[in-house]
């Protein structure tokens, strides 16, 4: 009996066991997936919690509901990965031996990486929305906030869902207008990059949207520390950006256990071949989803598309055959922009987000890099798609490989 062990039952880990169970003979393959807690989070939904659009119950489901029959699910803390002995140790002394390992332990916000991100100010003047608890605390704070300068900042790249801080800022603009408080709020978007987005065409579209919404942009702000007493971000170049309410994207890092095993880069993400997700160091270890160090977005869409490629390749690979499919870095993201509208971007390793229609060329129904009502409904309907189709590995009519049809250069 061969053993496939998947670490992490988030988006990538859950989809991979759903895709592989039907493709691997149950008489030959034992599949196990491990996660540290019982609750699956629809992380894309955190964004809506601070504005009261979603509540916690909308983004949480039991993980087991999405694990197919014939896959063993273990709840436990992963203590150690030993690639030489092909063994994973769990808290409490249990060991799991494997023939093939898939690391899908994701990436997570690590506030402690930023000096000053601690103490009483956290949850008062310093907030983040990258955890359910953080998003709920921000919802409570916004309800009673009188106004002032709200700074939305990014501490470090890469981080998951790279459009989320922009979306948060757009939604904040909408929400304060809806509540008659926009004139009491100054909105500032601060990023360590020289542009508001990493890709030029999308950056210029999004800069236009920011200007129209009267959101000030502060670029090249690489934060050294938070001075919570003064209420300011202090940058390495000496600049200080004062805030009354800070909504930050903390430094994102992969799992500690990845670092302890010597499998991570400087942010504990696993270096892999960007076409096949095979570890650059071990021929029986793959990394999928946010856990992998790939030059594309850390996002659910990437996890989904990359697992489709991986699931086609893996049964060939274990028979000693060449992996025929190569991932192109395909990502797509709805960008909620407030007032019931949204944008959509679709891109890969080589092609930046461009205007056009998606997924059907000329028809859509979604419009790329344009604010439309249909895009907004696409985003809102996606939660249903996520829980009912995507996680369970069912067919979604969106090809894994990006298409140039429908895009305008």
């Amino acid at each position, binding site marked *: 009996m061969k053993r496939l062990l998947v670490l992490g039952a988030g988006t990538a880990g859950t989809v991979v066991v759903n895709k592989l169970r039907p493709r691997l003979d149950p008489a030959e393959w034992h599949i196990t997936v491990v996660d540290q807690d019982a609750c699956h989070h629809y992380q894309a939904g955190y964004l809506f919690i601070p504005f009261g659009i979603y509540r916690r119950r909308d983004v949480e489901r039991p993980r087991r509901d999405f694990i197919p029959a014939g896959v063993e699910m273990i709840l436990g803390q992963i203590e150690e990965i030993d690639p030489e002995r092909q063994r994973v140790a769990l808290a409490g002394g249990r060991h799991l031996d494997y023939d093939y390992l898939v690391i899908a332990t994701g990436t997570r916000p690590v506030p402690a990486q930023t000096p000053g991100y601690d103490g009483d100010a956290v949850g008062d003047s310093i907030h983040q929305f990258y955890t359910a608890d953080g998003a709920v605390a921000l919802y409570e704070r916004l309800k009673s906030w009188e106004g002032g300068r709200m700074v939305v900042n990014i501490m*470090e*790249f*890469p981080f998951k869902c*790279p459009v989320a801080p922009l979306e948060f800022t757009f939604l904040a603009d909408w929400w304060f207008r809806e509540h008659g408080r926009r004139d009491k709020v100054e909105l500032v978007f601060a990023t*360590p*990059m*020289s542009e508001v987005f*990493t*890709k030029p065409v999308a950056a210029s579209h999004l800069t236009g949207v920011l200007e129209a919404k009267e959101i000030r942009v502060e670029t*090249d702000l*690489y934060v*050294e520390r938070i001075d919570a007493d003064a209420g300011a971000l202090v940058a*390495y*170049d000496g600049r200080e950006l004062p805030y009354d309410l800070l909504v930050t994207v903390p430094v994102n890092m992969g799992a500690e256990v990845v670092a302890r095993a010597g499998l991570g*880069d*400087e*942010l504990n993400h696993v270096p892999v071949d960007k076409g096949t997700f095979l570890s650059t160091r071990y021929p029986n270890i793959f990394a999928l989803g946010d856990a992998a160090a790939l*030059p*594309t*977005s850390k996002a659910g869409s990437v996890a989904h598309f990359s697992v489709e490629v991986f699931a086609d390749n893996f049964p060939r690979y274990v028979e000693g055959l060449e992996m025929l499919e190569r991932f192109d870095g395909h*990502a797509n993201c709805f960008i909620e922009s407030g007032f019931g509208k949204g944008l959509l971007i679709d*891109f890969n390793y080589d092609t930046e987000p461009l205007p056009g229609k998606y997924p059907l060329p000329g028809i859509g129904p979604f419009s790329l890099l344009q604010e439309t009502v249909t895009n907004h409904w696409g985003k809102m309907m996606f939660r249903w798609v996520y829980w009912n189709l995507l996680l369970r590995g069912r067919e979604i009519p969106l090809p894994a490989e990006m298409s140039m049809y429908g895009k305008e250069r």
Partner: protein
Amino acid sequence: MPIATIAGREVSLNDEGFMTDPAQWTEEIATFLAGQIGIDPLTDEHWKVIRFLRSDYTEQGETATLRRVSTLAGVDTKALYTLFPGKPARKMAYVAGLPKPKGCV
């Protein structure tokens, strides 16, 4: 694509003046490029960073980020801002003859 002669060698540059072929780089070119952006002279600390960037690029195929340099080269971020004032990530890459870091999506 503009071609310039620097320190006796022909090098191709992009619109922003970054070298487009890392193989054309020499230490003399680095000294010249550093002077262009007001870094003169290049100290041992500068060279430590530049040599790390060069060897890391050879292995990884991408220009190291500030965090990668500070974690792996033993020169902290604050020091990088002192060595390459203003926009260190761009300036380091410029002097080392490498593409400016992409700062992943």
